[in-house]
């Protein structure tokens, strides 16, 4: 149990190491959940849970200055409790959401400490002290990763028994309802993406993708390839247009 808790915490640390290894997306639920499954001996459930969590959290990325809910701890613990209680994806979702919101608070306070580290780094920069500046960079990373590792391990140890009994006492109306809600949540992810990308001029492309998928049943890969073709065509025709009307400028 203790070993498992440490390993589960390690998966959280692995997710956080994404900030050290170049945002390669190892912190996404699609990757973390199967690893949690591997540790708890149920890779299959891990994969399935990872897929549904990814759909929900798809729109949540740390772009710019907003702190999104912490998907790493949410996904890891949500998946772990879902597998232990044997209740599947919908339980993972209901747990992942509140856990990620609580973890976000912890994360915020660590960010405040990191600002302090930045001021310290200013002083070392003034002295031209390379070694010390480098040390602070590593320290900042450890300061986030290790607490999150511990937080996950401890929550897992305390939580798994409690969680299982709590989950067993939830009436089936609610769990069925949550199962239905699981299907809704991707709408939030997509809405966030639409909000990021859409403009009046480009809105038709959203509906083009929609129609190709719903009426013509083209798989996503095919639609992406079509998108590339359309983008190339649009760009080359736009270029010709500009040349044509240049005399008017």
């Amino acid at each position, binding site marked *: 149990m203790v070993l498992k808790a440490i390993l589960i915490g390690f998966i959280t640390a692995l997710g956080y190491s994404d900030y050290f290894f*170049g945002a390669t997306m190892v912190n996404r639920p699609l990757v973390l959940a199967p690893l949690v499954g591997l540790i708890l001996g149920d890779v299959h459930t891990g994969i399935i849970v990872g897929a549904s969590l990814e759909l929900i959290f798809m729109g949540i990325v740390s772009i710019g200055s907003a702190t999104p809910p912490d998907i790493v701890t949410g996904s890891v613990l949500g998946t772990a409790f879902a597998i232990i209680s044997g209740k599947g994806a919908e339980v993972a979702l209901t747990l992942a959401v509140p856990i990620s919101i609580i973890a976000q608070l912890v994360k915020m306070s660590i*960010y405040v400490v990191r600002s302090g580290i930045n001021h310290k780094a200013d002083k070392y920069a003034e002295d031209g002290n390379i070694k010390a500046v480098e040390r602070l960079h590593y320290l900042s990373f450890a300061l986030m990763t290790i607490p999150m590792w511990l937080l996950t391990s401890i929550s897992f140890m305390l939580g798994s028994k409690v969680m299982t009994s709590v989950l067993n006492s939830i009436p089936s109306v609610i769990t069925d309802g949550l199962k239905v809600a699981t299907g809704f949540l991707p709408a939030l992810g997509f809405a966030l993406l639409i909000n990021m990308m859409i403009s009046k001029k480009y809105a038709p492309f959203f509906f083009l993708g929609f129609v190709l998928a719903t009426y013509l049943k083209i798989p*996503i890969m095919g639609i992406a390839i079509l998108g590339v073709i359309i983008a190339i065509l649009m760009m080359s025709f736009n270029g010709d247009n500009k040349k044509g009307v240049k005399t008017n400028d």
Partner: protein
Amino acid sequence: MTNNEISTNKIQKSDLIKTFWRSFTLEASFSYERMQALGYAFCMIPIFKRLYKTKEQMSEALKRHMDIFNTTPHVVSFIMGISAAMEEQNSNDKNFDSESINSVKVALMGPMAGIGDSFFWGTLRVIAAGIGVSLATKGSILGAILFLLIFNIPHLLVRYYGLFLGYKAGTSILKSASENGIMQKLSKGATIIGLMVVGAMTGTMVAFTTPLNISIGGASVKIQEIFDQILPALLPLSLTFFVYYLVKKGVKTNYILVGLLVFGVLGKMIGIL
């Protein structure tokens, strides 16, 4: 990129390779006050070590790169390459305006973030996740593997060659790129592909149906069938746009999450879902 071209200058290929490896850690010390500043300075250190020998020079260089900086991590190496070229110029030329190193950095972080965010976060990640999720829902581990591969092969190529491209071209390429509108074109193209994929996923991955029946003249009609005849995935599309409206209105994501969960449970209790 031949070794020759670089070895005529002070900065060696090996210095740039060191910066390439360090560039992965850009966000390890992210904070909301300075964002990637400390990380950027950390990545530039191999270059400083080659160029600056006195403590004063080193101090100036480190301080220069401690100002707030933020861009898409996957494309940052391109800007680092340009910074390296400018630092080299600075170390060779006493009259070089060292302020310009920072102003070029700041001028680039916005446009590079624009194209980087729309390509890496908005397009490539969404496509990779879409393909990954569609395999993972069937229980295949290939989902996670393909997701990582589809995202990271272009990522690593851009990160590696971007650095050398940035260094080699220095500032000149950027002028011509923005004059020809290449950046804008790429960003527009990425938006088109991204929106089509999101549209497709909205139509196939949001699950929202109703079991309701109405009886017309004794015959019971399934409401879902009527919806399907109007437009397949009408309910998922409406729900997504309703949520989009809320997001646009500035409703907090957490409230929307909870709201959707409550809607699901209540809807099931009443029997409309």
